[in-house]
C-alpha cells in the first residue's frame, strides 16, 4: 500500500493536535510542563516493527494499553521506562514504598494515568476523523513493547501486512521522567483514515 507525502503530512498534523491534548491532560495531572517531540508516522511491515521501535527494546517497560475497534482497529499505548513509571506514581500519590517494584495497587494508578492520557489522545483523534470507536478498558503489561503490543514478527505472521505506527516521545523535566505515546492502526481501516485525514488537512490549509 502506498503512502503519499500528502497523506503523511495530513496524518502527522492530526496526530500532532491530538498529542497536544494528551500532553495537556498530563500537564493538568502533574502540574508540570510536558515537552513533546514531533510525532513520527510510519507505515511499517511486520519485519520492520522492531526497527521502528528500536529504542524501546527493553524487557522492563511499563505499558498501559487500550485496544479499540469498530470502524478502525488498533491499540493506543503509554510506554514508560520503569523508573519514570515509579516517579510518576511518587509525584501523584507520594508513594515511595520499595521503589523497585510495581504491585497491583500501583499498577492501578498507572492504569489511571495511561487512561487519562490515552483518552485525551484518542478522543481528539476519533473526533477529528469522525469515526466511532469502541474501546477496551486500559490494561497493564510489563515487558518489551513490541511483544506487549503483539508486534513481534512471529506473532504478526497473521493476515496483516502493514500497520500505521504513530509515535511521540515526551519528557517531564521537573520530575526527570520520559515516555512514549504509541497509536497503532491495523490494516483494515488504514485507507479510510488516510482519505479522511487528507480531507481534513486540505480544509485546514
Amino acid at each position, binding site marked *: 500500500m502506498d503512502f503519499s507525502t500528502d497523506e503523511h503530512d495530513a496524518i502527522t498534523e492530526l496526530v500532532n493536535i491530538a498529542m497536544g491534548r494528551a500532553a495537556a491532560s498530563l500537564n493538568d495531572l502533574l502540574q508540570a510542563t510536558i515537552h513533546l517531540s514531533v510525532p513520527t508516522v510510519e507505515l511499517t511491515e511486520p519485519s520492520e516493527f522492531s526497527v521502528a521501535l528500536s529504542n524501546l527494546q527493553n524487557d522492563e517497560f511499563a505499558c498501559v494499553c*487500550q485496544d*479499540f475497534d469498530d470502524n478502525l482497529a488498533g491499540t493506543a499505548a503509554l510506554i514508560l521506562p520503569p523508573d519514570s513509571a515509579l516517579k510518576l*506514581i511518587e509525584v*501523584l*500519590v507520594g*508513594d515511595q*514504598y*520499595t521503589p523497585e517494584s510495581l*504491585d*497491583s*495497587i*500501583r499498577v*492501578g*494508578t498507572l*492504569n*489511571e494515568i495511561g*487512561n*487519562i492520557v*490515552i*483518552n485525551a489522545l*484518542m*478522543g481528539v483523534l*476519533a473526533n477529528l476523523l469522525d469515526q*466511532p*470507536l469502541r*474501546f*477496551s*478498558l*486500559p490494561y497493564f503489561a510489563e515487558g518489551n513493547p513490541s511483544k506487549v503490543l503483539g508486534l513481534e514478527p512471529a506473532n504478526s505472521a497473521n493476515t496483516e501486512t502493514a500497520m500505521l505506527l504513530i509515535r511521540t516521545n515526551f519528557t517531564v523535566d521537573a520530575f526527570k521522567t520520559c515516555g512514549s505515546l504509541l497509536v497503532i492502526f491495523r490494516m483494515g481501516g488504514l485507507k479510510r483514515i488516510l482519505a479522511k485525514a487528507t480531507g481534513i488537512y486540505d480544509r485546514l490549509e
Partner: protein
Amino acid sequence: MTHSADSPERYTLYDYVPEGVLLLQQDMTVLFWNRCLELWTGLKREQIVGQPISVHFPNFDKQTFTSRLQGVFSGGPPAVFSSQIHRQIIRCDLPDGRPRIQKATATAIPVPNETDCHALMIIHDVSDLIYVNEKYQRMHRELVAAKEAAEEATRFKSNFLANMSHEIRTPMNAVLGMTHLALQTQLNPEQEDYLKKAHFSAKALLGIIDDILDLSKIEAGKLKLEATSFQLNDVLDSVVNLVADKAKGKGLELRREFSANVPHTLTGDPLRLSQVLVNLLNNAVKFSDRGEIVLTTQALALDGKGACLNFSVSDTGIGMTKEECAGLFQTFNQADTSTTRKYGGTGLGLSICKELVELMDGSIEVESEVGVGSSFSFTAHFELEEDDAAPAPPQPQRPSAPEPDALQQIQGARILLVEDNEINQLVAKKMLERLGLTVDLAENGQLAVEAVAKTAYNLIFMDIQMPQMDGYEATRNIRALECGKELPIIAMTAHAMKTDAEKSFNAGMNGHLTKPIDPEELLATLCKWCM
C-alpha cells in the same frame, strides 16, 4: 428528571453483584443505585435515584470526575479511577469505622435515540488490599529503620575499635620500647627474667589487640585481600620457623609434608595465608604436650588459571569432643572456657581464620578425638602465574635485614624525630642513639618545619597525630622547602590500617612504620634511607 429511553429497570440484575454499581446520566443524575451500594452507604435506592450524585457525594463535583465522566457521556473511551489517586469514590466507611477504599471504572452505555450516553460505574472495594499493603509498608519502613540502626551501630563499633586500638597502641609502644631498652642495660638475672616476661606479655597483648582490630575490620567489610605474586615455600618456611622454637621447647616434632603437584608461585595474599597457618600451628603447639605436629599441603584442583590448595595441621594434643568442635569457629568461643586459664587466648583466632579462609574462597573444618589429637584443615583458592616457572616479580615487603657494614655506614647520621608524646620521644630517641645516630626532637609539625629550614637532616621520623600541625601537613610544608624536597620522611604512627599507610604516601612520605616500633624494622628502614 429528564426521562430516558435507557430504562433503569434493566439494571436490577446488578443487585446480585457484589460490587457497587451506579448509573449516571449526562447531568450527573443518579439513574440506578444497586443493593451493594445501599449496604455500603445505608442510602436506599429511592433516597438517591433522581438526584444529582453530588448532593450525597460532593467529590463528584471535582473536575477530576466531571471532565473525565463527560468524555464517557459523549461516547468516549471508558475511564478508570484508581484507589491510590482517589481512595474513596463513594465516601463510606467499613463496619470497623475505617474508610472504605475503592477503585472504579466508568463505561459509556449508548441510549437509544439519544446522542449522549449514560455512564455505568462499577465500584470495587479494595480496602483489604490497601490496608494490608499499608501494614506491610509500615513494617517495611520499621525494618529498614532497624537495619539502618544496626548497620550504624556496627560502623560505630568498628570505628570505636579502630580508635581504641590506636589509643592502646600508643602506650604499648612505650611499654615495648622501654622494656626493650631496659633489657639492653646491665641487669641481674632476676631483673632480666622479670623484664623479659614483661616484654613477652606486652607482645602477646599487642597480638590480641591486632586480633580485635582484624575482626572489627572483617565485620565492617573493610578487610581486603591482596593479590600479589609469592613463593608458597617462603610462606611455609616462615610460619614453621615462627613456631619451631616453641615446639622444640615442648619436645614436639614439627614435620612438613608437601605433595609434588603443588605449584610454587601463587598469586594471593601471603600475609593472610601466613596468619591462618600460624594460628593453627600455634594452637597445635599450645594444646600438645608430646608427639608431633604435621603441616600438610596438597593441591585439590589445578587448571591453567588457578589452584585450590588444601592445608592441614594435625597434632597429637588434648583433642576435643564433637560438641566442642561444633562452636569452635564462632567469635569469642573456646572449646572449654576453663582452657582459657590453662592455655590462654581470646577465642578470636579461629573465627578470624574462618573469615580469612572464606575471603580466600575456601572453607575450614576440624576433626578431633579427645586424648588423640586434632586435625584442622582448610582450602584456599589462588591464582596462578601464566608460567609457573617464571620468577616472582619484586615485592613491596618489609626491608630485608641489613648487612653488618651497612650499620657502619649510617653512623653519625642526623635524624629529626617529630613526636609529641614524651615517653615515645624517649623510646625512639634512645633506640636511635644506641645505633650511633644524632637525634634532634621536634614536638609538633610546626617546629619540625622550622628545624628542617635551619638544619640539614639525613632522615625524619614523623608522628601523624600531633597538636598544632599534624604529620601530613608538616610533610607537605617540608616538601615545599628547597632543602626538603628529597629528604626521606618516614611516618611513625599507631595507625595500623592499610589505608593509613596510603595516606602517608599521598602526603609525600617515603615510608611508614607502625608503633610499637620493632627495633629490627627500624634499623632496616634507616639502612634503606640513610645510606
